[in-house]
């Protein structure tokens, strides 16, 4: 059963991408295909999760080649959880894109959007399932190749520039990854993770440290860990915003996942734990201090993203079950919340045509629903109780302050400070974009003029989530009719419903924090213990 189930989460999107290339003329067919495939992927991810809950770690040898030689797919509690969360977010963002595309923005859905998006989904799922280093490399390449295409969709000079930066930096890290795989193979004679977890123990200490550091650099670049984060705030904001949302939610997280996987499985003695902690503190501070200085809302969010990668590295650097538990809960929380924030900022951009905090303003008055949509995830990101960010931060901070290492407690203090900085950065966005009256400075030609008071409009659809308050019409963009046509209203409703759904998902994480934490605790214990993982892969060796 699991033989069939385990490859599905990446095989289906890949097949869908191929089919999508054939169907590229028919937008509606593409939409149905994309949504159908990703819905099926979510279902498969749920299946994997249930199988893992039932039987522990499951492994499949593709093609029947025995374990150390063939391609192994493994799902343990961590990968099953990541699979489910990322496939859900992928589906939600695709739904959002479909919602925007109904109006017929040519920019919203270029022809290659669906195939590239599905390929990206396949890559992300394969990263979580890969049971050997080389397959992990291939998974990252599949994911990144799709992301280069997505980042440069709807080409303009800024995107070309960003795409080049992004592609070259990612490729450099891929080359380093490949070299690390080569060095690992030369040293141990295997690339199978389970096999490696046994064999790295016999390596000389110096070599083990070098390997651990090489993988840290590789995944540090891909995951934007300071000081290797410089590419991220320069490239992510240039993409179409919903694509930035996918990248921010998933791409850096897959790198952090790979970092957690390699460090716990291959180098459990934690010789680079100190390095990880110092880098975590640097990442948090640099990211959030950067976020405070930015004027563009997408850049603010991108810097905040960098800063919050620090929390994940912090959890890993503590080298304890408690720390890993915190990191896993934080991963789940951050995937959902960061995607939501980017989606909300996309709606803001749609309404006002602006992304600069200097020119935004008065949105709370003109669209209370949107304000609520922004406020909840922003506060959650800052760790305000009782939202999901608080739960995740609490788990991490408990692990940090409970650590017996002074450095661990010191970095926990930095994490508290970073939480505060996040709150300041988010409040700044809130105050400038939503709260203050709209006084445009440096007005561009056709003034976006969301009226101070929301006029009860005939075109607007009453929002169920905003207590029946009517929404003002779309911010009058240059040349746009004030009254919305029917498909436009549907599109707008779908876009907002998806975003509201993402906010609700974030809230659900807080509500179901108990089960999530206990699942993460077991996942972390499995990561540290490693025997279940080895056994599951080993069983496949002699079927």
């Amino acid at each position, binding site marked *: 059963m699991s033989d069939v189930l385990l490859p599905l989460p990446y095989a289906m999107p890949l097949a869908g991408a191929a089919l999508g290339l054939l169907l590229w003329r028919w937008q509606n067919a593409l939409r149905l295909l994309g949504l159908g495939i990703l819905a099926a992927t979510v279902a498969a991810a749920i299946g994997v999760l249930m199988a893992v809950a039932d039987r522990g770690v499951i492994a499949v040898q593709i093609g029947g080649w025995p374990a150390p030689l063939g391609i192994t797919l493994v799902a343990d509690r961590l990968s099953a959880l990541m699979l489910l969360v990322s496939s859900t977010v992928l589906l939600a963002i695709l739904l959002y894109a479909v919602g925007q595309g109904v109006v017929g923005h040519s920019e919203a859905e270029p022809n290659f959007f669906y195939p590239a998006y599905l390929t990206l989904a396949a890559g992300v799922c394969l990263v979580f399932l890969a049971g050997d280093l080389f397959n992990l490399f291939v998974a990252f*390449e599949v994911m990144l190749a799709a992301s280069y*295409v997505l980042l440069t969709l709807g*080409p*303009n000079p800024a995107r070309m520039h960003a795409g*080049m930066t992004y*592609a070259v930096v990612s490729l450099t890290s891929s080359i380093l990854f490949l070299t690390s795989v080569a060095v690992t*193979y030369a040293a141990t004679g295997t*690339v199978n993770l389970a096999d490696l977890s046994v064999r790295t123990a016999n390596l000389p200490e110096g070599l083990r440290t070098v390997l651990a550091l090489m993988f840290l650099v590789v995944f540090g670049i891909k995951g934007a860990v300071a000081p290797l984060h410089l590419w991220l705030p320069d490239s992510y904001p240039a993409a179409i915003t919903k694509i930035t949302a996918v990248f921010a939610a998933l791409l850096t997280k897959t790198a952090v996942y790979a970092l957690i996987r390699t460090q716990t499985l291959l180098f459990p003695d934690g010789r680079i734990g100190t390095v990880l902690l110092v880098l975590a503190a640097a990442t948090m501070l640099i990211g959030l201090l950067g976020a405070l200085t930015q004027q563009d809302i997408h850049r603010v969010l991108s810097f905040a993203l960098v800063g919050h990668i620090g929390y994940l590295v912090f959890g890993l650097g503590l080298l304890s079950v408690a720390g890993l538990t915190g990191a896993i809960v934080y991963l789940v929380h951050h995937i959902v919340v960061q995607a939501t924030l980017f989606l909300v900022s996309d709606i803001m951009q749609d309404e006002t045509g602006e992304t600069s905090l200097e020119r935004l303003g008065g949105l709370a008055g003109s669209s209370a629903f949107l304000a609520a949509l922004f406020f909840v995830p922003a506060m959650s990101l800052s760790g305000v109780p009782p939202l999901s960010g608080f739960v995740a931060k609490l788990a991490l901070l408990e692990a940090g302050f409970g650590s017996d290492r002074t450095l661990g407690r010191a970095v926990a203090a930095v994490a508290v400070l970073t939480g505060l900085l996040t709150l300041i950065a988010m409040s700044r966005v809130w105050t400038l974009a939503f709260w203050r009256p709209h006084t445009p400075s440096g007005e561009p030609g056709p003034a976006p003029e969301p009226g101070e008071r929301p006029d009860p409009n005939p075109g607007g659809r009453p929002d169920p989530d905003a207590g029946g308050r009517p929404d003002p019409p779309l911010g009058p963009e240059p040349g746009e009719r004030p009254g919305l046509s029917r498909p436009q209203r549907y599109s707008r409703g779908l876009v907002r419903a998806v975003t509201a759904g993402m906010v609700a998902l974030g809230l659900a994480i807080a509500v179901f924090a108990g089960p999530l934490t206990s699942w993460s605790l077991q996942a972390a214990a499995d990561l540290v213990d490693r025997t279940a993982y080895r056994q599951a892969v080993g069983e496949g060796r002699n079927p």
Partner: protein
Amino acid sequence: MSLVLLIVIGVLFAVGFHLLLQRSLIRIVAGFVLLGHGSTLALLVAGGPAGDPPLLGRVRRGPMTDPLPQAMALTAIVITFGVTAFLLALAYRSRVFLGEDEVPDDVEDRRIAAEARRGDYDEEGGG
């Protein structure tokens, strides 16, 4: 393990990284190609010394070549090939848009640098 191969890998990496740090896009792409070659070669070297072809039943005697790194090297070659094609397309597109092959200055960097300079002048003017 051949020393020559190791030196070649080292040279490829050195030249590759040097080219990667240039401003001209075509040089960056060339740098990436060289880095790709270097890492592919590293994978081959990781397989140990060459021996008989790894075909069961057809080997005479002696040790076989390890086929696994070769399979990985092939995959890596395919990936770098595809990505190089994409990079070239991107560099061409960039040239069409920007009219030149150079990586432009980062706008944000320039803004901050300009602010810093202005700040310096202000201080000098005040002092």
